[in-house]
Structure formats: C-alpha cells, structure tokens
C-alpha cells in the first residue's frame, strides 16, 4: 500500500496565527456562525468571521434592506447587531463548544468606539483575530469614512493596534481610487493582514414607481457580479504589501477561491454564496483539497501567487 500524502491546506496569516485551511466565511453573511451548524460541522472552516460588532447593540436601517440585481444583490442592513457584550457572553462559549476557529469583525462611529470594542474582544482567549470594518458603505458615520484615505486608515489602524495584541486584519473598501495605497497605509500602521473587498456602492430603482428600491436609497453590491473587481484589487494589493491578503468577492465555488489564491491571496472569505447554498464553504474546502490532490500540488502555499503574466 502506498501512502497517499494529503495536500497541506494550512495557511499562515501573520501575527502568529495559522489556520487549518484558507476558507473563511465573510462577516455579515454568516450570522454568529452557529446558524450554520445544522448544515455542516463549522469547525471544518479555516475561520469564520462573525457579523460586525459594535460597542452597543445597533438597530440597523429600515426595510426594504435587500434587492437582487443581475448575479448579485444590494444590501443596506446598517450593521444591525447584538453588541459586543452579548456576543462575548452568549455566543463565544457556544462557538468554543462547536470547536470553531472564529474572528470578530468590528465597527464603530468614532475611533474610540473601535478601540473599546477591540479592547473588550482582546480579553476573549478563543478569538483568533479582529477584523476592522473600515469600509461599510451603509452607515453614515464610521465605516467608510475612515477607509477612504490612506491617512484615515492609518489613524484608525494605529488606534486599534494599540488596543489589542490579537492578530489585526483591516478590511478595505473597493469604493476608492487607489486601493494599493490604502492597503500600504494599513500595513505600515500595524495591520497583520488586509481583507478585501467589502461591497461596492450601488443603486437600484423602480422605473414605474420612480422610487429607489432600498429604503436607504443606496446599498452595497455583493455576489458573483463583483468578482472581477475583487480579483483585480486583490492582485493589485498583493503586489503592494508584504502582509497576507485575504480575498473576498463573489466566490461561489472552489474554482473561484483558487483564482483568488492564484493572484496571491493567502486565504479567502465566502459571503453572499452562503445564502444560496448554506453548505458552500464546506464544499469549497473539499474542492480545494481535491484540486491540489489531482494536480499533485503539495500545499496551498505552493500554489499561492503563481499567476503567469503575459
């Protein structure tokens, strides 16, 4: 009998964090994680990212909050969430019981808010990382206000960096002209990794009623429609920074995920596709493993960033 050596799926995300495979689930599309337990064992994920958390619970935007567009959707949820305290008290123990690797996505109106949430989460031993949402297009204050300039992102990143020793990821917006410069600013300010992309600002209107379809007027576009933009931005940022890049945007299959790894991402996050097929992230893990095995590639690290340019 010949021993079959399984491909090594583990990836190093910097800041002392290594995860068992490069597949994560994107914030805001995976609830608090446990909602997916009926569909598969969530400990199989490289990491799951919970819904954006703020200092106090947030009510969110009025409905209509979502609308479907061609191969995508617009959302204007407005970061409705239970707040960091309830997360730590009620959710963390259950994620630990489930054996899941999990990270928290955080959001605030002011830099002090971000700092406070990061400090509180630093006390949670089981938490793998903190992902700073500097890019939500659906809230008036905070979010994208910080994420749209290198100076803004640097100030916010430094602030949160001082508040936590956890691995720190900064999640970037695509709604900017030079995403590379912003990623670089996050790196220099102490981020351990950058995550991109968040949603693209979009608009949907009804030509009969002459009204916007979302109560918030504009929303964030996600899903397969944004994949080419995301892939380009991830590729661009991978050439600009030395820290790991986590790629997101329209991933629905192992092939999609492999494309992001190919352009240099260390890991990927799956968002909207979880709504279509709640098992998709587990299927992507299996698909990546099967691909590497078939192609006789020893590890994800060996495949990563091997795009051949003309």
């Amino acid at each position, binding site marked *: 009998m010949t021993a079959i050596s399984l491909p090594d799926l583990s990836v190093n995300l910097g800041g002392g964090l290594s995860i068992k495979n490069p597949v994560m689930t994107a914030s*805001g*599309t*995976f*609830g608090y994680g446990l*909602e*997916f337990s*009926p*569909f598969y064992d969530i400990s199989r994920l490289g990491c799951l990212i919970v*819904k954006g958390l703020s200092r106090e619970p947030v*009510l*969110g935007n*009025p*409905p*209509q*909050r*979502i*609308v*479907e567009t*061609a*191969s*995508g*959707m617009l*959302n204007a*949820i407005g970061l*409705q969430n239970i707040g960091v305290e309830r997360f730590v008290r009620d959710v963390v123990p259950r994620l630990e019981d489930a054996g899941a690797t999990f990270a928290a996505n955080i959001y605030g109106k002011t830099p002090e808010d971000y700092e406070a949430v990061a400090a509180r989460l630093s006390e949670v031993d089981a938490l793998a990382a903190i992902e700073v949402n500097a890019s939500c297009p659906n809230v008036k204050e905070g979010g994208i206000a910080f994420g749209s300039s290198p100076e803004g992102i640097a100030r916010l990143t430094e602030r949160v960096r001082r508040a936590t020793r956890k691995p720190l990821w900064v999640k970037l917006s695509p709604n900017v002209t030079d995403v590379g410069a912003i990623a670089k600013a996050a790196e220099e300010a102490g981020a351990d990794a950058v995550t991109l992309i968040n949603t693209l600002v979009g608009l949907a209107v009804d030509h009969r009623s002459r009204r916007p379809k979302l109560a918030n007027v504009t929303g964030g576009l996600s*899903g*397969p429609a944004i994949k080419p933009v995301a892939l380009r931005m991830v590729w661009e940022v991978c050439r600009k920074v030395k820290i790991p890049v986590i790629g997101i945007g329209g991933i*629905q299959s192992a092939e999609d995920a492999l494309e992001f790894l190919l352009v240099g991402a260390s890991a990927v996050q799956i968002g*909207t596709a*979880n*709504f*279509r*097929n*709640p*098992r998709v992230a587990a299927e992507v893990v299996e698909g990546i493993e099967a691909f590497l095995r078939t192609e006789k590639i020893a590890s994800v690290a060996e495949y990563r960033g091997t795009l051949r340019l003309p």
Partner: protein
Amino acid sequence: MPSSQLGFRKGTIVRNEGHGSIFYRMEVDLPEPVRFVPGQFAMVSGWPGSDPLLPRPFAIFRSGSNAGRHSVEFVYKVVGRGTALLSGLHDGDPVSLTLPLGRGFDLSGEGRTYWLVGGGVGFSTLFPAVDALAHRKAAGFELFLGGRTRDQLPPREWTPGGQAPGRFHLCTDDGTAGFHGTLVDALRERMKGVPAADLARITILACGPHPMLKGLAGLAAGAGVAMQASLENHMACGFGVCWGCVTAIRDGEATAYRRVCKEGPVFDAKEVVW
C-alpha cells in the same frame, strides 16, 4: 428526528404543472421525509447559473411519504423572473431546497375557532393549517378565500379536507364568484351580529397581500379578535443570517426589527407595525 430538521437538500422534480391561469404546483422528490408546521416555508432554487442569484421563498404546501419515496409540494404564482424560470422546469430537473424554515401558525389554543383568510396565492400557506385543523375535531374553523377575479381563486380540487367540518367562503373583488368585495369586507360582514364573547374565542390566521393583512389587523383589533399574520418580505438567506428580511415590530414603546424568516413569517398581528 432527522426528518423535521433544518437542512439543505437536493431533490428532483416529479411534477411541475400549471393550473388555471396563474398557479403552478411543483412536487419534488427528496431522499428524506419532510415534516413541517403549517406556515413554515422553504428556500427554493432550480435554475442554472447565478442570475437570479438568490433562492425564492415558498410556503410548504404538502409533504408526504409513500412506498419509501418522500416528497414535498409547493404552489406558486408566476410574478417575476425566478418564478417564470421555475415554471419552465421539467420532471427530472434538480432543485435545491433549504427547509423547513421559520415559525408557523400556533394552532394550540384550546376550544378556539379559527378563521383562515387567504388572499391570492396566500391560500398555499393556509391549506396545510386547514388540514391540521380538520384532523383535530375539537377545533372549529372557517376558510375565506379571495382573489381579484374568479380565475384567481385556487383550483377547486386543491381545496383541502373534503370531509372537514369547516365552512368555506369565497370572495372576489369583481364579484365574478362568491361575495363581491375584498376579504376585509367579507370578514366585516361575517363578524356582524357575533356576540363579543364569541369573537373573543376566534383567532384569524391570515396570509395575503400587505394591504389585506393591514386591513384585517385593524378589523381584528377593533373587534377583539386575535390574529396571526403570515408576512412576506424579500429574503436573501431565509434562515436568519443576513438580516435582510426584517419587519418593524412593537417592542414596548419602541420599534424593533425582527426577521420575517426566523421570528416569523407568522407574527401576532398586534405586534406588527403595519
């Protein structure tokens, strides 16, 4: 019991037929039996590709097992792209289902009379409740079905419970069948002369267009009649993770947003901010 557990399932269409001018009925074979509470629903997708991207919510109309085969049925009306694509699927085509979802009707009230009110395709949510009540001889019920015109009423052969002890009322906006007027008018008529003590024992179960539900909620509240309303909203996930489907609900003095797919789709009409 695995059968009633939430899951993502792949099934095969065994029947997908149009009835009357607008309703389709789809039957899907599944590897496992499905158990559900009337009012619960499924997220359904079956078309190839990712446009439309999201699955569509439909009430579970029926489920059954026969000779080791398990199936689930849906009734739908073609209103847009997703339902148009569904109506073009054939026997043997694969479909994906996430089910059973949401909180259905509470039929546990002892000694209550239920008035089931279905507007348009809303009957698909209510017929399973009729079946459940017809099996419980203790509970009395009346069924009110409404449509814009005669051909927008459910096909007669689908009306449940042949021997059910309940009473049936039809109504149409244009008067081409049954009561001439809306379901709200029909219910107002029906309430006339019913003593307050009897009204207090009635629960309305309703599903239909928003203006109908809103009208009924006002009528029920004024008459001291309890009402459970099955709401519809645009959904992305259907199982409580995206927070896209929320509706405004009274939370003491304040308003809270609750998920139609998780805390609903059936809500106490008094709690809904209409």
